[in-house]
């Protein structure tokens, strides 16, 4: 995954950017072809597509910027796990998706405990305790501030 990202990541980013731009312009011109509707976004889209092409053509080889950034991170973090950001981001997505079902209080507790545990597997008790205290505390504090009810299970 890491090698694939290093090799093709830049290309994937500009491809996604170009695809989103084209989809937006197609949608906009389907809604209205008036000059007022397209005067700003069409020239802007052309400039974006031109820059996407420029970035794709002039992109550096994998050993360039990404490799250097990675090396810095590794040295700063000691025994850093390259896959950890992916796991953490996956956990964050799962946390957000779970909120409508289990509420902020429970979701906060589980997310914080797992997030801390993922980065410090030797201290599960610390993770659990911090998750319970901070997760519940944050949900309670926000509920006190906001004028409407947040989705909750326990509180």
């Amino acid at each position, binding site marked *: 995954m890491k090698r694939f990202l290093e090799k093709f990541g830049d290309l994937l980013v500009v491809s996604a950017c170009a695809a989103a731009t084209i989809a937006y312009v197609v949608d906009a011109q389907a809604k209205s072809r008036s000059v007022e509707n397209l005067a700003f976004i069409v020239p802007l889209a052309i400039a974006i597509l031109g820059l996407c092409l420029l970035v794709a053509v002039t992109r550096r080889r994998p050993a360039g910027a990404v490799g250097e*950034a990675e090396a810095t991170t590794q040295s700063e973090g000691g025994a850093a796990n390259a896959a950890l950001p992916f796991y953490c981001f996956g956990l964050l997505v799962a946390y957000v998706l779970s909120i409508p079902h289990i509420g*902020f209080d429970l979701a906060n507790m589980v997310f914080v405990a797992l997030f801390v545990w993922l980065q410090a597997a030797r201290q599960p008790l610390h993770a659990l305790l911090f998750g319970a205290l901070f997760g519940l505390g944050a949900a309670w504090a926000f509920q006190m501030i906001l004028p409407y009810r947040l989705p909750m299970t326990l509180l």
Partner: protein
Amino acid sequence: MWIDFSALDGALSLLGGSWMAWAVVPLGLMIGLIFGAIPGMQTSMAMAIFLPATLYMDFLSAMLFLTAIFTGGGFGGGISSILIGIPGTSTAVATTFDGYPMTRKGQHNEALGAALFSSCVGMLFSYVILFLTIGFLASFVLNFGPLEMLMVALWGVTLIGILGGKSFSKGLLAGLFGLLLGTIGTSPIGVTRGTFGIPDLLDGIPVVPAMLGLFAVSELISLTQRDYIVGSEDSRRLNFGRIIAGFGMAMRYPGTLLQGSVMGALIGAIPGVGSSVSNLASYAEARRRDPNPESFGQGNPKGVVAAESANSSSEGGSMVTLLALGLPGGGGTAVMLAAFAAHNITGGPKFIRDQTDIVYAIILGNMAQAFLLLLLGLFTIHFISALVKVPIRYLTAAVLVMSVTGAYALTGNMLGPYVLIAFGALGWLMRRFNYSIAAMVVGLLMGSLCDTNLVYVYQISGGDWQYLFERPLALALALLLVVCVAVVPMLRWYRGLSAAAAQAGRKPA
């Protein structure tokens, strides 16, 4: 006369009659100090995270709260630079050069004192300059029509894109893509575009959750690979008296203080440049002018004074473009512009003309913040230096929960957290591949404004492009835009060639 004394009187009444405005300032300063001091946590991230809280404040209190975070972060970044040799924020890089060597020599108390005093002086200086010039700037900018505003916004986004990042094309691409995303929703003529059937997007992408994703989530996820641990050196003890002695140390270099403050204010006013550059430029200038430049990097207090006075005075400089033009120069001021929008206020010359008392109140409140920072910084430095040593995994988890809940609080439904996740992923990719996050955010904020102004221009001119020649100021701004786009890559290319030639010259034959 550029100072409106009746508005000044109104500003003093506003500040004197609002307990809320003063209650939130120490809180904001503390948040800024903490986020600034922890490596990896940026001040703009703190401002974005706490932006939802400002929805329940009046506009003046909201602005003072956000500027207090900005101010606290300015000095907070210097604390970890000095104590552990890791800049807390990008604005405190140059503070590390002499601050950390001072710590190694056992002068960390004096270094912290000098940094705190210089930050306060720099900030005060920049807001005094802003106070004296804002009236003139507003009267000048009031002549701007839609074409000029369009050109200013495009110039700002372009400049942030090409100067803020490592790559010209990627920076510009981030800014322009941000502009495009900023036009999603209902257009100025009532056409719905780019919503792809999602009714929640009719009002456009919710900017604050998007900013939270770009600034906070992307950075926090990157931080999961790091843990800044201070080893045996963490036992350094802080001494109140010696920190105050550091104030005196900074006062011994009034020329360096003034030079840093002036450079910071000027550089801070340029969109896309700001305090990240001003602290380095001021440090380099102080070193160049010094009779003993070799002492820099070895623990010369002048280095700390030059860097800290410049990065703090950049704040006032960046407020010039925000208040006078409604154009944010970077991440922090972009969050402030979002706060303007959240309170249904449009920044720019009309805001200064119509609500001069509030503008003066913001400026005067910030001058008072400089003195409060001096006190609060002095009394909380022990606590903050201890917090720097807390394992970052606890802090990232806590801040992520606050970001997600804050995003929900802003939209009142799950759209906020979903946008936060989407932009968090986008921001993480952008950071990984060196795209400018600040340019994307400013583009997102400016997209709708550019679109609306272009529609006005089209309607005023009847579609005749020669209208540009009837507006000399707009023409000058357009030329400036072209020059920026043409000159910056040429300069970078030339520098690259020179560096390559120098390297080739060093290689043995």
